[in-house]
């Protein structure tokens, strides 16, 4: 009996210590790269979103959920991560459906241009999946996303991946052991500063303009999933100057959208409201706050016209109160960034929401 008790005690000790050490050693993503905290941020929201926006920085920097709500009454959440590939997006969609069923999904199709998991894609895989709750769909998507050096087990037990961080532990690891601060407002990452686009290299001719099969399969999967759940799928391309979006690619997407009766909004060709001398914070790759708000104001009416399931939900007290709170944070963040820009010309400190709100 004594031996069994001692073994039980050792087991409990091991599990507890393993959990604690794992939590300590996992990156907290509370400063650079804070985008790794975006996936987990979704679980803090109240799961009442009519529109889920899925994609890479082409969505989380470019569309403002607060403008969507305040001006059009669409409650939206952005599920985006840096370099989010199509199969990552499928993982986001499947994960979302475990918690809520939105009326519409706006999907960035830019990642179709990436045919297979890039060799150096491990950090991006981690940013997508580290914050995601463990589930079978998640593991299936992990399997498709992994680089050859990665192991599935390290996504179930992240300690196996991050154990060597014991040398890099800092105050942030202790500070955020129990809690996390928000890094976005409903998935939106704000940048109010301006870095105009300079010389843009001409698009390189490609030997083959076909998309990769893995990316196409993920798109078809998302189409099937949304159809199965009665969700409207809307395709979207942000007005980025880089990486270049070839006409041949666009033609494929247009064709695909027509074949399946999907609305497709290509902001490169659909709008001339974006001026990359003023509306970008990184030389034309992504929009800054002014650009994001402009694009959102252009996109939202088109959405209302093309996605009938999206209606104006303003006036619902619970939603109003929730969004009022988010809008207040949004304005505070904006004010902090504008103050820092006035002082230094760029956004450094207030890039983090918690710094802006503190």
């Amino acid at each position, binding site marked *: 009996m004594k031996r069994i008790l001692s073994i039980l005690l050792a087991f409990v000790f091991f599990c507890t210590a393993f959990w604690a050490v794992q939590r300590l050693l996992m990156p907290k993503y509370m400063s650079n790269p804070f985008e790794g905290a975006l996936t987990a941020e979704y679980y803090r929201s109240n799961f009442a979103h009519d529109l889920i926006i899925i994609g890479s920085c082409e969505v989380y920097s470019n569309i403002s959920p607060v403008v969507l709500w305040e001006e059009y009454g669409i409650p939206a959440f952005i599920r985006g991560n840096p370099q989010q590939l199509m199969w990552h997006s499928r993982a986001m969609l499947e994960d979302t459906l475990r918690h809520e069923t939105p009326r519409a999904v706006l999907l960035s199709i830019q990642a179709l241009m990436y045919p297979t998991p890039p060799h150096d894609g491990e950090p991006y895989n981690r940013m997508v999946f580290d914050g995601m709750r463990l589930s079978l769909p998640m593991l299936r998507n992990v399997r498709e996303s992994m680089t050859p050096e990665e*192991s599935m087990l390290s996504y179930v037990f992240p300690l196996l991946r991050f154990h060597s961080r014991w040398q890099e532990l800092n105050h942030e690891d202790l500070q955020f052991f129990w809690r996390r601060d928000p890094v976005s407002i409903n998935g939106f990452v704000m940048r109010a500063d301006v870095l105009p686009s300079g010389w843009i290299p001409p698009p390189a001719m490609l030997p083959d303009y076909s998309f990769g099969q893995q990316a196409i399969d993920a798109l078809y999967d998302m189409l099937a999933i949304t159809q199965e759940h009665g969700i409207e799928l809307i395709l979207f391309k942000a007005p980025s100057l880089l990486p270049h979006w070839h006409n041949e690619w666009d033609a494929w997407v247009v064709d695909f959208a027509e074949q399946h009766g999907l609305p497709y909004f290509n902001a490169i060709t659909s709008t001339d409201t974006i001026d990359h001398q003023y509306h970008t914070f990184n030389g034309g790759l992504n929009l800054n706050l002014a650009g994001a708000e402009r694009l959102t104001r252009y996109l939202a009416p088109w959405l209302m016209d093309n996605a009938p399931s999206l209606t104006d939900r303003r006036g619902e007290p619970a939603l109003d109160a929730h969004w009022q709170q988010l809008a207040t944070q949004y304005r505070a963040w904006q004010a902090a960034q504008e103050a820092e820009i006035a002082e230094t010309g760029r956004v450094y400190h207030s890039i983090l929401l918690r710094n802006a709100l503190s």
Partner: protein
Amino acid sequence: MTFISPWFLGGLCVLFVLYYTLPKRAQWPLLLLASLGFYALAGWAALAAMLVTVAASYGIAMHMSKLKIAQKAHVAQHRDSMTRDERKAYNAAQKRRQRGWLIAGLLFNFSLLAAVKIGEALARIDIIPSMIFFVGISYYMFRICGYLIDVFWGKIEVQRNPLKLALFTIFFPYAMIGPISRYHNVADALLNEKRIDWALFGRGLQRMIWGFFKVMVVGFRLLLSINHLRATPGEYSGMFAFFTMLVWGAYLYADFSGAIDISIGIAMCFGIRVEENFISPFRARDIFDYWRRWHITMGTWFRDYVFYPLSVAKFMQKWPTRVKIHIATAVTWFTTGIWHGVAWNFIVWGLSNGVVIMISQELKPLYERFNKRFSFTKTKVYTCFAIVRTFLLLTLIRAFDIYFDVPLTFRHFASFITNPQFGAFFRYFGEHEVWFGLAPLEWLVAALGIAVMIAVPWFRKEEKRRPPAIFWAALVLVIFIFGMYGLGFDMQDFFYMQF
């Protein structure tokens, strides 16, 4: 596949469950299947070579056994009709026939081993293309040849079931890295039906954990530094070279004894006890003591099957005893070197051991007189001196395996005197943030690991006071945190798996 693989560990768990839940008569066939599967993962050609060896050895052992039985029957039948001289002559003739078969078997097996070793040596210097890696061939060859010799000597009964003999030869925990078990030591445990012995199972798990700690926390960490140090050996002479030799010794012990601990631990979990291979080798007081503590099963194999038979061989009888012993010692250590590989560094390593042993044997009377005359030789301080002296001596001998380059190793020895670089060595630590490929904190972990490894003579405490379960839980956690594995770490095979 190595022991440090989630697939291996997962498969092992399944195997434990099957082993103890299936009918007991299925236990040894299950182990054989698992061993064949494990070996097949190393390559079909390697598996085929192993099976050919087992088949040939089985046939020869059976034939020797038949000859023995026929001999006994003949002598019994003609007891009255044969004179003593006739009986003697008949027995001698029969023995010669059996010896002929034994030599044929040994020649066959060692030819295969030699072909593989020579092929590897030629491939190393690009004379022939790279060969298939016949993993663990040195180990199973020695097991099976030991078996043949024991059958010939009549020490053991012949194994009539070839599958059981195959299991003895390639039982997967010791297939790749040893220990080099003897048939009479493990056969019963391997082949008997067993109920689970929870105490032994628990000790097996603990032994595995201990092995993983040595290999993953200490061995693999030091290997990073070793790889750095030998990448540019010309730069690191004098004290640097001496430091490399010290690190090499610690690495080799952690890697090899750790792998053996895992191997022994797995066998224990199956209810099978195999021989110990290490008994605190860094506590040895002289080279004889060292070889009773380091790679014990290899040492005893060469002692029993090479040294002793050679010492008493007829053709040696014309020499005085001391000459006989020296010749046998030289041959034994030459073959020990060759066993490691057909390369000058291994041969010089083997012969260096032999030379030191021969000198020690010659000086033995002098030492005994010295020890008798001076009482301080019985103090702990002198014991420590003897331990350090032996450690340093073996550190130098072991150095031949670091660079696989004999002239370079000798140049490094010479540099201890001609260019010791004391100042440069100690300045190095102040001038660099990373020390020989490892960050200072990594060195701290390695040093603590080495201290724990040397301070805990596992086998002695095993049966007495064992640490509580919580200690093992903590050690597993230490392995998870400080072990070298995962992304960015290039996992390499155990050093001794190449033999």
